[in-house]
């Protein structure tokens, strides 16, 4: 298949799954006529009609709850959060109903739904449109949380998420929609719960996800030249975390750096470090290094914004410090 842009990879995933299963439908703001703010549902309206590609009023809490009700009664909704931040208005439906209802109902209902859309820090979009929401949602019981990072995994993961019988919060990154990659011609799925070892190495384990995968790889290019050999793991599944893959790496390298775009306080990195403490403390030769974005609303000014998130240079320095200086 020709080079595919990430947003088109997502579109293909949705298209294929809608074709395959008539209970799959998309709903959200401007997903229909407009084709989605980031073109992920472009032209699907013409193909599937207004009920299967449902343009909703701007009522996040209620259309999310509506999707829960539809999922309970046998449909498989895919909610597009035009920006995932808007779904803060639906926090109650996502936490109490999508996440908890199955358990609280004693297994009466299952809730196969996907909540997907762009998150993360964009390019000068301002505080509300540049959020790091995984921190807010990671404690919700019953939710699976996934972050895609390449056209290949975006497509395969989204297909798996749509087929999963549980609610999946699916994060795309607003600055990755135009990544390109050759995708296979045949159908494929990527499992939701497996971290991806992006680069094998022996010096140090770098745990990352979403856009930061690319910042890490940029740093790694320079680090390689200097003779460093880091192992890079893209977590993919932010909840549950794949501690099999993470653990194998730690037992090999004994050093860990977490690189995340998430808020530092209470972020995904915090949980990773706590879990490493729980499980692999004795394997560690040094404290885990936590590189997160700053605990501030994302400022609009470009320079302040760059200071807010982790930059490749900082990752390089962290690896150098940890590996070369053996601190």
């Amino acid at each position, binding site marked *: 298949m020709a080079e595919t842009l990430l947003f088109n990879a997502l579109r293909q995933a949705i298209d294929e799954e809608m074709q395959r299963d008539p209970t799959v439908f998309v709903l959200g703001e401007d997903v229909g006529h407009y084709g989605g703010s980031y073109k992920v549902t472009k032209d699907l309206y013409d193909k599937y009609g207004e009920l299967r590609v449902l343009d909703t009023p701007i009522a996040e*809490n*209620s259309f999310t*709850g*509506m999707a829960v009700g539809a999922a309970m009664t046998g449909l498989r909704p895919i909610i597009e959060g035009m920006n995932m931040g808007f779904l803060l208005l639906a926090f109650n439906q996502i936490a109490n109903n999508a996440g908890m209802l199955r358990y609280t*109902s004693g*297994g*009466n209902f299952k809730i196969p739904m996907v909540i997907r859309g762009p998150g993360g820090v964009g390019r000068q979009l301002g505080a509300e449109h540049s959020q790091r929401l995984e921190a807010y949602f990671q404690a919700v019981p019953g939710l699976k949380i996934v972050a895609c990072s390449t056209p290949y995994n975006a497509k395969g993961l989204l297909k798996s998420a749509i087929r999963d019988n549980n609610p999946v919060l699916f994060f795309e990154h607003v600055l990755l929609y135009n990544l390109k990659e050759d995708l296979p011609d045949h159908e494929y799925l990527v499992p939701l719960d497996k971290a991806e070892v992006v680069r094998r190495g022996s010096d140090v384990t770098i745990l990352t996800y979403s856009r930061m995968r690319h910042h890490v790889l940029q740093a790694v290019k320079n680090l390689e030249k200097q003779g460093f050999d880091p192992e890079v793991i893209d977590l993919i599944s932010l909840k549950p975390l794949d501690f099999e893959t993470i653990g194998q790496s730690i037992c090999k390298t004994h050093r860990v750096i977490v690189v995340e775009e998430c808020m530092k306080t209470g972020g995904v990195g915090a949980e990773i470090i706590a879990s490493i403490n729980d499980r692999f403390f004795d394997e560690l030769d040094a404290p885990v290094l936590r590189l997160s974005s700053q605990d501030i609303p994302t400022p609009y000014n470009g320079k302040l914004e760059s200071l807010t998130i982790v930059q490749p240079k900082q990752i390089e320095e962290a690896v150098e410090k940890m590996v070369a200086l053996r601190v």
Partner: protein
Amino acid sequence: MVQERTLPAFHAASAPLTQADGLMLYEDMVLGRFFEDKCAEMYYRGKMFGFVHLYNGQEAVSTGVIKAMRPDDFVCSTYRDHVHALSAGVPARNVMAELFGKETGCSRGRGGSMHLFSAEHNLLGGFAFIGEGIPVALGAAFQSRYRRDAMGDAGADQVTACFFGDGTTNNGQFFECLNMAALWKLPILFVVENNKWAIGMAHERATSQPEIYRKASVFGMPGVEVDGMDVLAVREVAQQAVARARTGEGPTLIECLTYRFRGHSLADPDELRSKAEKEAWLARDPLKRFEVYLLEQNLADEETLKSVRQRIQETVEAAVAFAEESPEPNPDELYRYIFAEDA
């Protein structure tokens, strides 16, 4: 005391009732009443815990609406859900067992009073938070339309009834859902049980326009008010709304003027409602009123009614015995039901 609203006129004669239907409605109302009385007793005896919200006084609404629906229709409730569950066909013993926290409860003891669910009976819940059930009910209604119009299943004509209180109609989800239901002509009944109070908040103190049914008008949706203490009046408006919904004409907002005979929950001291108000409404007890009607219309004699009551009393006692004897959930299954694969 606030002036009570004038009730809309309703002449039962306009809706002829068979004897069988009359007894079926009566039985359902008696079941609701006796079940709740038993709950109060069990609560005070320490058999059930947490917040328990009883339905006494409002039985005509549950019975009037749900018994106007088909068993394959959907029902969505609130934390005041026992009686909706019963009307929807969830056996009393499974509801009682749930309140006792037992494995045989309709939510397997995980939910409790405010979280009754039964997939088998299309009971969508039991929602403990105000208003959050409305979008969920909307989803079930959307699903019916979707099956019919997007999946070509002509038989998909299920209707959803969504119950909630006056206080809930000040919450955004109510309005958001009225709009979507009307916009997409979804087969749903929004049933407001206006019992004049939201815990200690009198309805007029919470809303700038107390006539809730009128709110439908600005969504291009029919809104009707009905005497919520008269099961036949409720039944009639429900039947019309169900018929409209079933044939694809869309949603209806039904405001039932009713009253709860007990405090908000069994933990509520209920000090704010005046004695006069309570008495005025107690005098309109929907169960007594329907009894009188059945007798007057010769649809039943004292004997028959008594035997219904006896049978229901036995059902409720049996439910308690069942609940008592049922096992607790297995502690090893603490994590079961988090994910769909744990079925």
